[in-house]
């Protein structure tokens, strides 16, 4: 495992892809192109396997009603918001090494520094990451970086839109990246070899995350005409905007 880690680091330093490449194509809401039919369809991967995705969508939809929603609402009622916030911070901090490696692999060196700094500050002053003093005291905001993005920065295309059972919206590339991030790297840092325990930790993490968003899915069902299409669009919009939200990325003002 350690060898893989070193390999990845060496690869990062050798490869050094164009810095901040992902940050250059921010959505410009002020340009009406954004609202013109199919203007950026070229950037969005097609939904090639829509019938399959729709089946998976209804699977997760049912799962939400009978499993996720009941479990999460009990959890939400039992655990106060403060504690749930601490748990969320803890996981975010624990995964910092994943983000660190990914920022390096993408050549976002300033972001890598931010991730490292946040990790050090939150692990020490934040009591093992339970608090987020880096953001609250020092205004160092979180930076996101995933293997899916890394693959994208290296020129690997999305493939197609993929709706994953138990997981949700993704693309072939992003979900593959997620598997690498989640299954290979996270257990390594937690020193856990038993996949079942990893799965339990993952389930807890996701339940905790969902406890802050309970009810949003019900709203979505009521407010949309086709929740499947709405989620697909929201996924691509959110993905694009969150990749351009890191404080170091060139802001759209500098045109």
């Amino acid at each position, binding site marked *: 495992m350690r060898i893989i880690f070193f390999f990845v680091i060496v690869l990062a330093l050798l490869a050094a892809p164009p810095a901040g490449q992902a940050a250059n194509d921010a959505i410009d809401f002020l340009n009406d192109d954004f609202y013109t039919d199919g203007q950026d369809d070229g950037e969005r991967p097609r939904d090639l396997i829509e019938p399959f995705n729709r089946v998976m969508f209804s699977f997760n939809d049912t799962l939400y009603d009978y499993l996720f929603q009941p479990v999460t609402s009990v959890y939400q009622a039992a655990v106060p918001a403060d504690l749930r916030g601490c748990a969320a911070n803890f996981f975010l901090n624990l995964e910092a090494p994943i983000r660190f490696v990914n920022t390096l692999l993408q050549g976002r060196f300033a972001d890598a520094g931010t991730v490292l700094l946040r990790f050090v500050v939150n692990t020490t002053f934040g009591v093992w990451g339970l608090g987020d003093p880096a953001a609250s005291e020092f205004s160092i905001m979180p930076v996101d970086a995933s293997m899916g993005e890394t693959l994208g920065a290296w020129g690997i295309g999305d493939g197609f839109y993929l709706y994953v059972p138990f997981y949700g919206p993704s693309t072939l590339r992003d979900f593959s990246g997620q598997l690498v991030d989640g299954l290979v790297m996270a257990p390594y840092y937690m020193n856990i070899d038993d996949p079942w325990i990893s799965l339990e930790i993952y389930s807890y993490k996701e339940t905790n995350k969902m406890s802050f968003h309970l009810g949003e899915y019900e709203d979505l069902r009521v*407010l949309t005409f086709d929740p499947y299409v709405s989620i697909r669009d929201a996924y691509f919009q959110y993905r694009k905007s969150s990749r351009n939200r890191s404080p170091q990325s060139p802001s759209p003002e500098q045109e």
Partner: protein
Amino acid sequence: MPARVFFALLLLVLLHLAPAILAEAVGPTEALRPTIDRILEVLRDEQLKGDANLRARREKIMEFVKKRFEFEEMSKRVLGREWRALNEDERRNFVELFSKLLEYAYIGKLEGYSGENIDFTSERIKGDRAEVGSVIDHHGSAIPVSYIMINMDSGWMVYDIVIEGVSLVRNYMEQFKPILRKDKYAGLLKQLEDKVRELEGQNVGIKSDASLLSDKKDS
């Protein structure tokens, strides 16, 4: 006599221009701030809280929203090419229905955050367009909401709301596209009417986390 006519005309022209000149002076953030403040005041009003007061609360909020939100500009964008094919009455009807939908989608969302603080964080102006960034502080996590605005006779008007990076107008546009392709405008109109009737029939607020909590506190 001709002089008097001339002055009358001049006055008329000046009066006509005045709103535009005045509007020019107020920047997008400053135009939006009072509207958001009013909405928050209504949301914080103890007498207007809870599902029982939903109608009264929404009516009050919509009164302020309508002054600063340009639903026609939204409708234009959400329908795209289809908008040009509609006549005046059809357009008016669509704008009315779509504003109802936005009322539930946007105000419902704000109600979910039950009057928590909103800070304006950024402003970007490009010609007659502007993007005003704001952040809602919700249980310690910051939810970014951007308002996309256009400079019109009536000042800076909102024509899109971007919540956590997701444009509401674009999201509905994407949903309308396949409906328009399959069932044409008539089919879309029917679905929109059904949806608005369904939302109005429910007569309950949106169910997000925060509103659930505040309801518990009320009872």
